[in-house]
């Protein structure tokens, strides 16, 4: 089964990027955690915008 590519999500408030490949380990979200698997009441670590106020964006990976 081929893995779906990891996606990146941007906060509509402040522009903070969540990269599924990296996760957010400092708050217990391991690398590879898909957006759907993050709790709905989670919010942007930088500006507290709600999870529902993120949008998927294309990021060119280095």
């Amino acid at each position, binding site marked *: 089964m081929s893995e779906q590519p990891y996606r990146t999500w941007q906060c*509509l*408030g*402040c*522009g*903070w990027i969540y990269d599924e490949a990296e996760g957010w380990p*400092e708050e217990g979200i391991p690398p590879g955690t898909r957006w759907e698997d993050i709790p709905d*009441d*989670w*919010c942007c*670590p*930088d*500006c*507290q*915008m*709600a999870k529902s*106020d993120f949008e998927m964006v294309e990021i060119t990976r280095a």
Partner: protein
Amino acid sequence: MVMTVAADVEVRGSGAADGEWKDPKRYLWLLGLLVPAIPFGAWGLVNLTGLDLFWWFGLIAIFVIFPFFDWFFGEDPTNPPESAMKRLENDRFYMWANLLYIPIQYASLIVGCAILVRDSMSVIDRIGFATTIGAVGGIAIAAAHEMGHRKEKVEVFLAKVTLAQTGYGHFVAEHNRGHHVRVATPEDPASARMGESFYRFLPRTVFGGLRSCWQLEKKRLARQGKGPISLRNDMIQGWLATAALFGALCLAFGIELLPYLILQAVLGFMMLEVVNYLEHYGLLRQKLPSGRYERTTPAHSWNSNRVASNVLLYNLQRHSDHHANPGRRYQMLRHFPEAPQLPAGYATMILRALVPPWWFRVMDKRLLEHYDGDITRCNVHPAKREKLMARYGAAAAR
């Protein structure tokens, strides 16, 4: 994580028989639309009374009338329950109560300029009337603050239209992506420090905000492979909008208008900055081992719940909820009584901020109480650190 505070929130307001919550403040928001009409009020009062004093009606409103209303009309009893949030968000009435600020603001600006250049106006009258127009531009920034936080691109665009009057078009980018990210840290130009007077804070926030916005826009454009000198740069857009507005007004009414346009813009953004000053004074987020700051919680803003200032400023006083939920429209914001409280409404606290010894006497004690007397937990102005440690440091040592 401080997300679910609904349980703590008191539900008040006349409930209908089916339990549907009714907003007691719904039609009060329309009173806020009287603010941009203040220049018309000034003109009317001058003609009615023959007193040139009323050219200064804007400052009279800010320094006398609004603080009186704060005292007279008391606390805001509205606190929408979680069950009403969806309905409130989708009720377009509130959006219009916000957006309609703009046509009234620009009508009073244009008519105001026409009046200001008349030969019958003395220089003193003109300065007074310019401050009245500036007061409207300043409170316009509160209206623009609301619009600039929305996801809808049209509303964000209208925020920039509103800000053209005060030359503060960069406010949307800097506020959303700078202030909201760095709030209550020494790195935020718009978060005041303990011991820092408003007059010390003012150049730091004005120039720091400009510098920060330039950096944010430079980075954002670089990610798109573009340089900072671009029409897509929010700051450049803002400057061009203000230049176009001032240019058009001077073409219409004469170049002698320009110094007054500058005066009203400066007064306008000074009003915004004095509100910034009192919103986070001395509050500090702790640094985590990772080097990042802790998440922003309701403990990181100063609040008030005086209904008059709420109505004038689109619930801006409910500042903790705003930082906890920056995507929430103003009509949904709730009062958090357990969060830091100012001793009076924003309109009244502005007066105190302008007299630093009075401000420090009232607020330093309140700030320390919030931190159980431990001054090391405050965001302290470095130049005053030694003096403040000497005065308050003993408590921390206990």
